[in-house]
């Protein structure tokens, strides 16, 4: 699941020159770490919805926690996916 989420991030966000092994599953996804921004968060939200049928609220504090790292996102997707 971790690698699947990494691949989804790389493909969805056009992260050229980034390989799965370059992404630390526990590092922050946004600002620090991978350096993604708010538009990337929205883009990932759409991708997660299309791929796994998960709907995330863009405002909630909970969503922020799930988006903290690849690992937290993978855990959340594994628990909540409907496809």
């Amino acid at each position, binding site marked *: 699941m971790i690698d699947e989420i990494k691949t989804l991030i790389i493909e969805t*966000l056009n*992260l*050229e020159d980034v390989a799965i092994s370059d992404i630390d599953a526990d590092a922050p996804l946004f600002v620090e770490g991978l*350096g993604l921004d708010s*538009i990337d968060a929205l*883009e990932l939200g*759409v991708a997660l*919805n299309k791929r796994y049928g998960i709907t995330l609220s863009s405002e909630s504090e909970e969503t922020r926690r799930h988006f903290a790292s690849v690992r937290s996102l993978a855990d959340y997707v594994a628990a909540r996916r409907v496809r």
Partner: protein
Amino acid sequence: MASLPEFSFRRWSAWAPAMSVADNWLAWARCETSLPDHEETAAVRAMPPLLRRRSHPLGRAALEALYAPELAYADQPIILCSRHGEIDRSAILLQALATEGKVSPQEFSMSVHNAIPGLFLIARQSRSPVIALASENRLALSGITEALVRLADGVSSVILIFCDAPLPMLFRPFVYNEPTCFAFALEMTAGRDYRLACNDTDTAPSQEADSAPMSDSALPLLRFILDERESALPLSADWRLSRLEAGHA
């Protein structure tokens, strides 16, 4: 009518597939070669990858021209002139909306006409002003006019960037289609090399202005500037760009 200010094009840069060096463009301007029918996307190595990933092929061509060392960009105002901009984004968004009902926030955020120079200025952390123009067949006239306004405002140098690309198939039946993706940048300053001339106020329209048909593309402007054989380039039914003789009074 008060005469319009004269001006110069001080520096230039250009990018198209297989046309990455100045000599390629000079040969093209002399009509020795035509733009190659070749698929290539500009590398834009000068831009951080996290920003570069947001650009499409047209944006990359424009960014490559803006980053070109020959242009020596120094935080001048930028005027982007493109008939369609990155219209492939609009096609992607419209088709996604029609088929899935969900659109990409990333595509949407970049689907404005000034997004390309915006990305460039974010990367440079510059607050220079940007104007983005679209026009059917008066792009060169619109851009030069806008640059003259900026120069009259007291700015000493303006960057004009022209870019367009082949249209998505969706739109091709309706309008002129550029055969190749291209971008060129011109640094325009006050000077004594060119002026805009109006056919109504000038007693004798030049032969060149009469004989050369107006183009749907901005490329003839670059050719006119690089290849100094012609003395005038028609920019609309009424206006032309005139090259001034060296040392004219």
